[in-house]
């Protein structure tokens, strides 16, 4: 299945399209069983049903009918969150391998996998700084004079709709804030840089890569010192198009 591949500056900025990415069962199956946090025995088969063929039955929405009505299970099954979670976690690695030419040693999957605890790091750290400027050249604001860091935090998500995907990207940004907060003293030049990789799996399907860059780096650092929880909207204003 070839999926439209869109790159975008921040969450709302300029965008461009790259050659569609092929998300086939084989690639998605084993990569998501490695990267995914949930224990699923046959990820490839789940991916086939959940995303490729849409084999899950569903009825059209009925106006005024309660969302969680008791007949829902008669109409089919719903997607298990753990399975879509695994799918979401793997797409960033596939993008990095194919479009950023990342070597295996440049893709570290660091998601903590601790249930019921707030994550303090994104899904991945990727040493992709040298590839960013060429792949994203069409959307990078000019002039952009900060130095690219080597290691980038990358958060990876899968959602079923446009609205859910937008929400997912905002959630992903919180993970980046958490990472920047961890490194703000020791690696301050890397604060504000990150990638968010989001797969929307309902047709028309799309993989969107959001390039997160600092717009006002000194102020971002100052504000980050005051904390990031419940202050996301303030911090976002110091990033490009967020």
């Amino acid at each position: 299945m070839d999926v439209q591949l869109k790159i975008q500056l921040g969450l709302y900025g300029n965008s461009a399209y790259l050659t569609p990415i092929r998300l086939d069962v084989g690639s998605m199956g084993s990569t998501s069983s490695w990267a995914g946090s949930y224990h699923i025995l046959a990820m490839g088969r789940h991916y086939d049903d959940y995303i490729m063929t849409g084999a899950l039955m569903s009825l059209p929405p009925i106006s005024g009918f309660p969302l969680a009505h008791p007949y829902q299970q008669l109409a089919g099954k719903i997607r298990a969150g753990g399975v879509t979670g695994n799918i979401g976690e793997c797409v960033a690695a596939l993008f990095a391998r194919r479009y950023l030419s990342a070597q295996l040693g440049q893709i570290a999957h660091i998601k903590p996998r601790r249930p019921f605890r707030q994550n303090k790091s994104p899904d991945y750290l990727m040493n992709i700084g040298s590839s960013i400027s060429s792949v994203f050249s069409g959307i990078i604001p000019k002039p952009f004079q900060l130095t690219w860091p080597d290691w980038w935090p990358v958060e990876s998500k899968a959602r079923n709709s446009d609205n859910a995907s937008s929400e997912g990207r905002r959630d992903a940004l919180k993970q980046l804030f958490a990472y920047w907060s961890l490194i703000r003293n020791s690696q301050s030049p890397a604060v504000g840089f990150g990638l968010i990789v989001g797969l929307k799996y309902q047709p028309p399907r799309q993989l969107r890569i959001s390039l997160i860059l600092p717009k006002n780096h000194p102020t971002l650092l100052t504000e980050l010192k005051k904390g990031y929880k419940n202050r996301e909207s303030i911090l976002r204003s110091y990033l490009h198009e967020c």
Partner: protein
Amino acid sequence: MSVDTNNFIVATFALWAGDFEYAETLLSRYAHVPALNGAVESPDDLIRRTSALRLRQLRQKKGEFKELAAEHGLRNPVLANPTVLVTNHLRGALWRTSAREFDLRAYLTDLTWDESLLRLAHNEANQHERSLEPVEQTNSGLGFGDKQPPKTTRGVAWTVTGSLLLRAQLSDMCLLEVNGLWTEPKLTNSDEEIKGPFLKLLHALDPDLVRSVSGSIKQTG
């Protein structure tokens, strides 16, 4: 890349494969690294702390497993480790998943060897039944009409026929999963009849002499 980063990445592959002893060996150097509770010094430092977390999680699971094994007692022991197949650049964990089914998960221990592995796997697929994508189906939907090779992805899938039918899939991350199905009417009592085809496949992907084989084939818990 730093040694720590490569160690960590290979350890995540080993955990994926169920090659727990090796994962623990790789991660044990981080046993005294503090937990991730505050600022970190660098991305490498974050990776080290994540390694320490993975090690603690693995050891906790081992403890739980011991209790589980004790409950089963000696008459029905639950076995912890797979058969491990090792070549110069690869390690594979071979599990028995049912009476007739086997699962090999193999991964690179030398991360710089990925392009060679991908190239050799494509060669191997060309010599066997390469997995193709159907573009037409028969009316019943059970048979395929025309087929075509999948458009370019870095990974590849193929099938090796024999008493043990092997379906191999190498992913973009160079993770190799091989499902084996014993097709003879009678089950075999021989470990070698099971290991042999898997070893032959690994040897085709890593042509230098296979270094060692450890363990006997065990059923997954």
